[in-house]
């Protein structure tokens, strides 16, 4: 196996009486598209929220690109190099598409109050660079022409793309997408798939949660399957497809 970008071992998370995650871990190689599937309520999004710092895990070790990171706060995780999107799109609705992506540059830029008020040379240059990079990313995901449009007036598919562009703006080593194809029609799914492959080619590793098993099978390099907060299978898509435990989990087997 090539170089490991994300290595997570032994995550436990309990909400009161509910053990949401039991000893879950993933190991993702650089440049892969890694899938995480499972029936509703299996704990996929919980796991996502744990690795991106939104929930605090009870136990677990976390390593990104060979360095341990602590998922104690979402902004620290973003700085470490994991960017995410949300299952139910969370854009900055009243801002323009371009501004949304510009916010993503926040963590990689540094001008503060002084630079904002006096706009000295370094501040102007940084601002111009932020703007240029944001436009570049909008073009990259294919909505460059809507840069000035208010985010909440974009079509659903474009909002998804905008969220991905905003996440890419943080210069992530790992892009974590929570059900990016949810609510998309067949054509939009094909386009999304092309976009994900394009991102992969740009050298960014992708962790993907998705319901659409068909989409996942063709797209992912490796897949993990969660059920009731436990990992029940891990492997190549072809292996997963044949795995009896997975089939049981999805179709309701011998319980």
């Amino acid at each position, binding site marked *: 196996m090539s170089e490991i970008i994300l290595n997570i071992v032994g995550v436990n998370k309990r909400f009161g009486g509910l053990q949401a995650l039991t000893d879950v871990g993933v190991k993702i190689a650089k440049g892969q598209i890694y899938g995480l599937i499972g029936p509703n309520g299996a704990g996929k999004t919980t796991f996502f929220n744990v690795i991106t710092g939104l929930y605090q895990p009870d136990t677990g070790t976390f390593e990104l690109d060979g360095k341990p990171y602590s998922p104690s706060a979402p902004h620290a995780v973003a700085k470490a190099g994991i960017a995410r999107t*949300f299952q139910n799109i969370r854009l900055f609705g*009243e801002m323009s598409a371009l501004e949304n992506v510009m*916010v993503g540059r926040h963590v990689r830029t540094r001008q503060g109050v002084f630079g904002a008020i006096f706009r000295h040379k370094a501040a102007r240059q940084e601002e111009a660079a932020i703007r240029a990079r944001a436009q570049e990313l909008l073009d990259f995901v294919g909505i460059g022409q809507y840069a000035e449009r208010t985010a909440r007036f974009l079509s659903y598919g474009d909002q998804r793309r905008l969220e991905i562009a905003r996440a890419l703006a943080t210069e992530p080593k790992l892009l974590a997408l929570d059900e990016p194809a949810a609510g998309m029609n067949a054509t939009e799914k094909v386009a999304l798939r092309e976009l994900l492959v394009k991102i992969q080619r740009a050298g960014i590793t992708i962790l993907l949660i998705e319901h659409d098993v068909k989409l996942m099978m063709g797209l992912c390099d490796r897949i993990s399957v969660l059920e009731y907060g436990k990992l029940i299978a891990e492997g190549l898509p072809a292996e997963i497809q044949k795995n009896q435990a997975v089939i049981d989990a999805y179709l309701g087997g011998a319980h």
Partner: protein
Amino acid sequence: MALLTFDTAHKPRQAYTSMAVLLAVMLVFPFVAAQFGNSWVRILDMALLYIMLALGLNIVVGFAGLLDLGYIAFFAVGAYLTGLFASPQFAALLESVVNYHPELQDAIVRTFGEDVRTNGIHLSVWAIVPLAALVAALFGALLGAPTLKLRGDYLAIVTLGFGEIIRIFMNNLNDPINFTNGPQGINLIDPIRIFGVSLAGEAGSRATVYIGGFGMPSVNAYYFLFLLLCMVSIFVTSRLQHSRLGRAWVAIREDEIAAKAMGINTRNVKLLAFSMGASFGGVAGAMFAAFQGFVSPESFALTESIAVLAMVVLGGIGHIPGVVMGGVLLAALPEVLRHVVEPAQQALFGKVVIEAEVLRQLLYGLAMVLIMLNRPAGLWPSPRKEDRPAAALAKDEKEESKA
């Protein structure tokens, strides 16, 4: 608002022309108004202070979306700071200390000289303004820190409480150490003195300020100072709005969780919003104290916080020209009403049928209801030309290129 536009990004020429015209009007205005009596200019002076307050609150409420109902506390902090360090009040403070901590008094007298014991401290405006901004900013962060996890209604309730706490402190901090002189307030606050020119006018000049050979009423001098400060405030807040920091504030307002996930340290950025907003309040408070020459806790009641919030919301939350307009309308109109309504009724009916104060409350409430019903985003909300259909946009651009 077709006549005036302040959209420097999209229509720079029109925007700068509008600003120049407005500035010219503002510069001439006090001289015209003074013909009808100094009280008119005084109204304007107060309106300008309220604009500063509204601009500061706009950072917290408009940009960062943190509903603050105790904003007037920072105005109070600035005003009382001036009261303490630019009036004889410090002598009273020393007198009250002497029984409890004589060694403290000795230390203070040794540092500032024997004069402090009788005259108090009289800092110059150059020290007072930064100090007021700084201390108010500190209070902003201090009061902001416990509210970081709160939003919306809950945040409003807590900030309302903080606002009241500050006022009650001002009311009671005259014992055991006399900081604020309690409900009686602090009197004899120094007028502002810039390069040796007192803006209240020298003794015996009948409140006329002479700069070179040119004389004008004291209220006019203050008007120009406050106008300058307002312009600085507008400049600073609009620069902040269109910066990395301003975007982070708006991002927090729009979706705090997404903002966090995008790497914004929401704790720091929110505290910065609180303290930046508060610093404007502090400077406005310092100006208020020097202008009035007197401060008392009554000036910082909850109704004042609400009035400033109403200026922001009615004018156009988050939109600087709108906020300024809201400030002018809500600060000046009631006063204008007071000057106009009663004489008008005298002339019409020969007696006063409805008192101005009653009418003021009535119109204030009515305006509030009507505006919120018909223009929920405020009288002059931020333009979002992208929302319009593409055809209208294209037409707009064509017209611009022709112009």
